[in-house]
Structure formats: structure tokens, C-alpha cells
């Protein structure tokens, strides 16, 4: 359910700075809460959300801007709030959105020496990258206290249970499987 004190507007990319500046100077939204990004890969756009807050009237507004995903570039807003440059550096690093003119936007911020596509883009396969780059430990297993204690306290019962489970898993009664085993 959407809150009554939170609303969103969508503006074209060329008018975004103008809209945010007007909101800050005349609309009373003097506080920038955050800049967020939504990767709408199906439509080929990044949706930037500038979330502003009016600390007097307790109102929030999100100004959404859709930019092209292939040529991701947005006007910098670091002249409006000094903190914007941090968000813009992070967006540049995590989504690959360029903000020309923003101070330090070219420098790495969190990732050092990243050489793949930006990791927060949805076409970046995190699991595949992690398994390719880091060394997965084989045999991740759980030791559930219930089964663990059963094994220790009632080894015979637990053994029978395990045997039945293995039998069921190996396809007991399934004709093809029994033929293979035979």
C-alpha cells in the first residue's frame, strides 16, 4: 500500500535537473534522501529515482527519470547537494551510469579493479561469477540438530530410516531403475 505522504512523478531526462531544482528551491523539498536506480532490462531503460523529503511538511516525493540503458548517461546534480557525488559514484560503479562533470566519478569507490560488467545490472550473473572467481568448497552439508541427535541416540532406528530413504531415492519400484540395477 502506497503511503499518503509519498508520491512519484516521472519526468523526461532532459528536464530532470530543472524539476529537482524547482522542488528544492520552491517546493520545500530541501532534503535529498537518496538516489536509487531500477534496472528495467525488459524495456531497455534505467529508472533513476531521486527521493526528496520536505522536513517541514513531512512529505516525500520521488522524481523518476528514465534513461537509455545502452547509452546510460545522466546530467550530474552535484551542484544541488554536495552528497549527490557519492550516489553518482556508486551508480557509476554498480550500474555503469555515467555522470559527466561529477567530481571523482571516474575513480573506483567500493570495487577495486573491477573488470566485468557492473555487478548490479540484471544481466550480470552473480552466482556464475562467484563460482567462476572464488573457490566453492565442495560438500556444503547441514547438520540439523534433529537428525544429528537421532543418529547419536538411536543409531538403529536412524539407520533403518536412512535405508528406506535411500531406497526411495534410488527409485525403488521404478521399472527402468530396477532394470539398470539388475
Amino acid at each position: 500500500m502506497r503511503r499518503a505522504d509519498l508520491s512519484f512523478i516521472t519526468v523526461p531526462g532532459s528536464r530532470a535537473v530543472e524539476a529537482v531544482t524547482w522542488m528544492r528551491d520552491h517546493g520545500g523539498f530541501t532534503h535529498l534522501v537518496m538516489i536509487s536506480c531500477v534496472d528495467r532490462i525488459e524495456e531497455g531503460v534505467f529508472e533513476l529515482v531521486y527521493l526528496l523529503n520536505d522536513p517541514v511538511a513531512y512529505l516525500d516525493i520521488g522524481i523518476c527519470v528514465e534513461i537509455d540503458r545502452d547509452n546510460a548517461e545522466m546530467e550530474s546534480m552535484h551542484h544541488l547537494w554536495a552528497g549527490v557525488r557519492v550516489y553518482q559514484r556508486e551508480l557509476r560503479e554498480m550500474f555503469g551510469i555515467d555522470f559527466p562533470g561529477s567530481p571523482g566519478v571516474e575513480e573506483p569507490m567500493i570495487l577495486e579493479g573491477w573488470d566485468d560488467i557492473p555487478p548490479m545490472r540484471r544481466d550480470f550473473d552473480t552466482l556464475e561469477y562467484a563460482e567462476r572467481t572464488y573457490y566453492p568448497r565442495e560438500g556444503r552439508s547441514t547438520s540439523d540438530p534433529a537428525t544429528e541427535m537421532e543418529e547419536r541416540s538411536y543409531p538403529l532406528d536412524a539407520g533403518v530410516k536412512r535405508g528406506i530413504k535411500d531406497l526411495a531415492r534410488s527409485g525403488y519400484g521404478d521399472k527402468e531403475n530396477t532394470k539398470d540395477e539388475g
Partner: protein
Amino acid sequence: MDDRKMKHRSPVPEEELLSPDAFLAPEERGLFCQDRPEPVEPSKVKIIRDFCNWAQANSVFILAFGTGCGAIEMRPLFTARYDISRYGMFPRPTPRMSGLFIIGGYASVKTMKRIVRSYEQMQNPKFVMGLGSCTVNGGMYWDSYNTVKRLDHYIPVDAYVAGCMPRPESLIAGFNRIKELIKAGKAEGANEYAKNFEWYKRNQRRIIKDWNMPEYNW
């Protein structure tokens, strides 16, 4: 410790390794010793060996470097309730003074670079304890793009404390385990590191892409 051979991985080519002075400015080169670490064999005489191990086990100083969220569990250890100084342990501010490195939880690639530097700056004998599930197999960061899964591929680990998070009691159990290993002369992580130096360096190089430090810095 059985998969040192790296059968299923393509290693970094040999020629990229061990190129001294490649990443340092000329004025910085004299500041670092670039010699490789040498394994230090324990004494042949049993009574001296035992005495050294006993002495080392009773003055294990911890490097106060909180590398992950697990470091929050080290605070209660130092204060009145769990008071780790009862066990002859104490946090030290610099790697030069400390003998035990506790990797407190997840190690991201960025932290890994600092971990490697700090570990190499520690003096022998030095021990490493992996704290939390993340150091064992990645834990909840099993599919993270930025967190290493197995700490023992980058620095040698003597003991693990599993759990997410482990309680201070588990940490004390881990300390006792480390002490047992030291007394038995089995905590030979630093020598492991020196012997398998290329293997460790190759693994570190695979994740630390912007290598701008000496090959071995101490």
C-alpha cells in the same frame, strides 16, 4: 588442505608472478623488502621445541583488525564479562606486535587486499583464526560477487570457528583449540605460506585485480 593442487582451475600464467618493482614508484622501491618468505624449521631438540611452543601458546596477541561483522563479537571478549586476558591474550594495535589474526567474518576482495598486507607484516610465529561461516565456505555470501568463499586459499588458516555469529564462548573454544595446536607444534601456517608461496600469490592475484603493492610486503 587437500586440494592444494588446483586441478580444476586455470591458474594465472607464471610470467605474471613475482615481478619485483613492477608496481612501485622508483622512490618507493627501497622502502619494502621484496625477499620471499623463508620457512623456519622448528628446533631439532625436543625440549627446546616444546619450550618454544609452550611460550608461544601462552602469549598469543591478537591483531586488533576487525575485518567483518564478526569483529563485533571480539569486544565482549576484551571487556569484563569474558575477559580474554585471563588466557594470556590481548589485542595489539599493529601487525608487528601481534601473533594471531582473527578474520572476523566475510572478507570482501577489498578487505582481502588489506588482510594479505597485514598478514604478511606480522612476525613469525603467526596464526590465523577464521571466525564465522563466511570464512569457511562463504556462508550467507555464497553467491556474492565480492566476497571470497574459502579463506584458506588466500592465507593459511589454523582453526575455524563456525557459526553465524559464533558466540564469545565459541571464540574462547577456538582460542583453546589454537593453543592446543601450538603446543602440539601443529600450527605451522606461516611455514605453509612460505612453502606454497606461489600458490597463494596466484590465488590472491586472481581476485585482487589492481595489484599496486609489493609482491611480499613486510
